[in-house]
């Protein structure tokens, strides 16, 4: 099971905070994005946003990073703290 979190404004845009995914075709950030858009077509503009940031197990990650069961993936907008 892959745990997927949507944070801040993205959570409000998608209306979802967290998903649990059991799917063998989801093996990387890019295949995860494809899976999300295939299953929720109205999420496409938000998931395809080039400014969207991704973390795998609390570390920033790029699209080609591989993911596996047990991982925690978080999608979120550019950060604005400080």
């Amino acid at each position, binding site marked *: 099971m892959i745990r997927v*979190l949507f944070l*801040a404004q993205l959570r409000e845009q998608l209306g979802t905070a967290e998903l649990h995914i059991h799917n063998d075709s989801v093996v990387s950030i890019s295949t995860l994005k494809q899976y999300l858009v295939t299953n929720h077509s109205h999420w496409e503009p938000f998931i395809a946003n080039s400014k969207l940031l991704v*973390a795998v197990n609390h570390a920033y990650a790029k699209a080609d990073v591989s993911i596996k069961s047990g991982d925690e993936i978080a999608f*979120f907008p550019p950060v*604005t*703290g*400080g």
Partner: protein
Amino acid sequence: MSFSIAVQVHDFDVGHEYAALTANDTAAGAVVFFVGRVRDMNHARDVKSMSLEHYPGMTETVLQQILEEAKGRWELLAARIVHRVGELQVADQIVFVGVTSVHREHAFQAAEFLMDFLKTRAPFWKKEITSQGAIWVEENVKDVKATQRW
């Protein structure tokens, strides 16, 4: 006191942080600290209050990494980052960054470095409550550019 971070709902006390940063340290000839506060205007919108969200777990990890990087670049004796989350009012304190060093150059530079990277790496998000409703704060291009000098 050495190198530490805190992510917390409650307010911090600058005097207490200063005392802790310098306690039992007779080598620290320079102390630099920065406090970020909630201001009443942003992009010509009047801000009533602010809600600060973060990503528990990753926030602490990133702040520790930023501290480690600063330690590697400058001769620091101690450093501290405190960042608040939750509901904040205008003029409330948001963030404290404090650094001590033998001489001021290292302390000044490290404090600026810590703030620049905190603003662009640490997973915090501000939502302003204004007279026009709730507005998520947009990424500031100036902040992204500021990290390029390091």
